[in-house]
């Protein structure tokens, strides 16, 4: 019998192309860009991690989640607990357990542990939430976000309450961010082509038929939920180590909607959509930002008024959604097609 090429081989071009796009941007900015522009790119890459993390759950399950920025919050604070110098922690976060108060861990082990915290949280809460479907599930995830935000805003001895947590080493640079974004893309791709990913996308289309096909929807949803919590947690870790300072309100409604907007504008059902949505919106924002500063047109400088950038980005999004309701990518994956490949190759969420 002839062996069909494996699903991995058939679909691997998608993550590779996406990573290549991000790498190209990172390299170009590193070579030619200014410091502030480099920061813009790092921020974009962190958003890629977040949005791809959200996509793992939302894109495959079809359930819009408002709660994933909450996982980012858990990850960011866990990173802070693990990496802030003990002296600072003993002043501002006195309620932490002894071993955290007295130790400071290096970045990578801490990043892993900090990303695991939201995953564990998702594993505990997930079995309850995953019983819900549709908009009830969305509301429940929003309630989860509100609970996380309220607790972190007021649990002063452990989270510092509404005040900023400071002293987080600022180690996130373009390469770490690029590495993590690539990692997130690979994880998301591996999940998408996994058994669970396929089963969950089937359930997204037709929950009832999926059950009749032997799919345990709650279980598959939970797997996606936990995995996406892990990746969103990693986005939180990156963010904490990027700014060096975090507050609970950085992980609330604005962040949630910005992330969801990028996802929807890119195309909610495809991994490529998640990544391209972030890149596209980030680029538009940067262009508008330059226009706010003024663009030299011949002899005169033309500038749009301060604050017009936000209005413009909203309008751009509306226009895109009107003309491409399924997002820029229209739920397709970017693939490298060679003629010999059979059409069946597509096992990513399809058009």
């Amino acid at each position, binding site marked *: 019998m002839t062996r069909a090429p494996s699903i991995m081989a058939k679909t691997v071009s998608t993550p590779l192309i996406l990573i290549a796009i991000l790498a190209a941007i990172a390299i*170009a900015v590193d070579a030619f860009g200014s410091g502030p522009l*480099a920061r813009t790119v790092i921020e974009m890459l962190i958003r890629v991690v977040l949005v791809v993390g959200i996509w793992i759950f939302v894109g495959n399950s079809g359930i819009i989640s408002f709660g994933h920025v909450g996982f980012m919050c858990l990850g960011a604070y866990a990173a802070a607990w693990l990496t802030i110098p003990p002296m600072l922690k003993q002043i501002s976060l006195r309620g932490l357990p002894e071993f955290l108060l007295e130790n400071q861990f290096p970045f990578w082990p801490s990043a892993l542990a900090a990303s695991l915290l939201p995953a564990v949280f998702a594993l505990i809460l997930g079995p309850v939430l995953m019983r819900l479907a549709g908009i009830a599930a969305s509301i429940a995830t929003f309630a989860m976000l509100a609970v996380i935000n309220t607790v972190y805003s007021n649990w002063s001895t452990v989270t510092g309450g509404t*005040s900023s947590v400071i002293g987080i080493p600022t180690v996130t640079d373009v390469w770490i961010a690029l590495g993590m974004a690539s990692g997130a893309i690979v994880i998301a791709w591996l999940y998408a082509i996994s058994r669970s990913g396929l089963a969950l996308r089937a359930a997204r289309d037709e929950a009832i038929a999926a059950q009749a096909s032997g799919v345990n929807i709650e279980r598959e949803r939970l797997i996606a939920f936990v995995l996406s919590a892990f990746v969103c947690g990693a986005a939180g870790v990156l963010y904490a180590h990027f700014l060096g*300072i975090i*507050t609970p309100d950085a992980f609330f409604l604005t962040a949630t909607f910005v992330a969801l907007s990028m996802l929807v504008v890119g195309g909610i059902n495809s991994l490529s959509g998640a990544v391209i949505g972030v890149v596209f919106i980030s680029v538009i924002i940067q262009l508008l930002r330059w226009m706010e500063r003024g663009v030299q047109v011949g002899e005169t400088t033309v500038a749009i008024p301060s604050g017009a950038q936000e209005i413009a980005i909203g309008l751009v999004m509306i226009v895109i959604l009107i003309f491409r309701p399924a997002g820029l990518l229209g739920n397709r994956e970017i693939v490298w097609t060679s003629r010999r490949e059979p059409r069946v190759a597509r096992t990513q969420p399809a058009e």
Partner: protein
Amino acid sequence: MQTTRRAALFGAAAIVSAAMPAIAEEEDIVIGFAVAESGFMQAYDEPATQAALIRIEEINEEGGLLGRQIVPVFADTKSDRAEGARAGLEVIEAGADMVVVSCDYDFGAPAALMAEAQNKISFFLCAESVRAGIQGVGPHSFSASVLAAVQGATMAEWAHEELGATTFYVLEDTWTEYNKGICDGFNWRAPQIEGVEIVGRDTFVNDDASIAAQITRIRNLPEPPDAIMLCSMMPGVVSAVRQIRNAGIEVPILNGSGVDGSYWMDAVPSLSEFYIPVQGSVYGDDPNPAVEEFNVRFEERFGARPSSQYAYPGYVMVDLWAKAVERAGTTDAAAVVEELEKMDEEPTLFGPRTFTSELHHQNRARYHIVKVTDGEPAVVDSWTIDEPIPLEVLLQ
């Protein structure tokens, strides 16, 4: 950070704000403003920035600093933290000798941390958290304002001494650290005063649509308190005051400086028995006539009088920093910090200021007390707390 390789591909637009009034030349002294020109924080950053510009213009008119002109450069934080850090970096790349950051600690810190990482002095425009300085940024960071806790402590002492209040009710808005700071100062000072009793406490959140339940609790006290310490800020504070007064509770309400300004008082018709600590009066009745001269100059320059006392720290900031630079004979950060830390009760237009190597903020300050009667605010007293608030209390 890549600070040298720039511009080839992405154009010069990325480097320096176009809002910059003049191109800084080699010999100029540059003050970089990484503050909000749009978004939520804009309304809070703008007045203090304008006041700072007035002081800069004064110095330039008088021949400059160390014989050089001061040139301000700007980058918009867009009221966003990540943008704030980027704005900080931008003004530093534009050659800032000192970086001015957003009024609020949370929004200003990212830019201040950028400055700190490059050993530049940063000044918070009007942050009132102890973290706005050494504790939250590093040894090169200062705040131009006074700690929120001092406001709470001032109100506790003054209300007891001058209003004869002995029973207090504390209503805390848990929305921000500033609010909590006022209450922390009050909670530290009030119990130390002989005979003072806190008869009740409650919390709310700034954006609560209604605080009816909290008010019901106050009204159900066996005796009305002598005063209510209200630790809150805009916009929720207006709503809270209005609801308290509409509920028929007429006892004195004590506040932090955040409610200064008469612009909101239409919301509570014939507001009375309302007390605010201020660094200087915007109402034309400051005991120091120079303050009123400043108000007039401000109006001439920007078309309106300062709307609240929060313009003043901007003026104080440039004033103190320029003095320190003059004394050090250089803009070099280490030398200027050293001079700033030598300042002990350094007189300014808005009261004396002190910096030490432990604290780059005011844990004791002279406050004017503004009393609102029938919607008319007026300075009725001045008060300085007995002793500075200890650092341990502030850091709690």
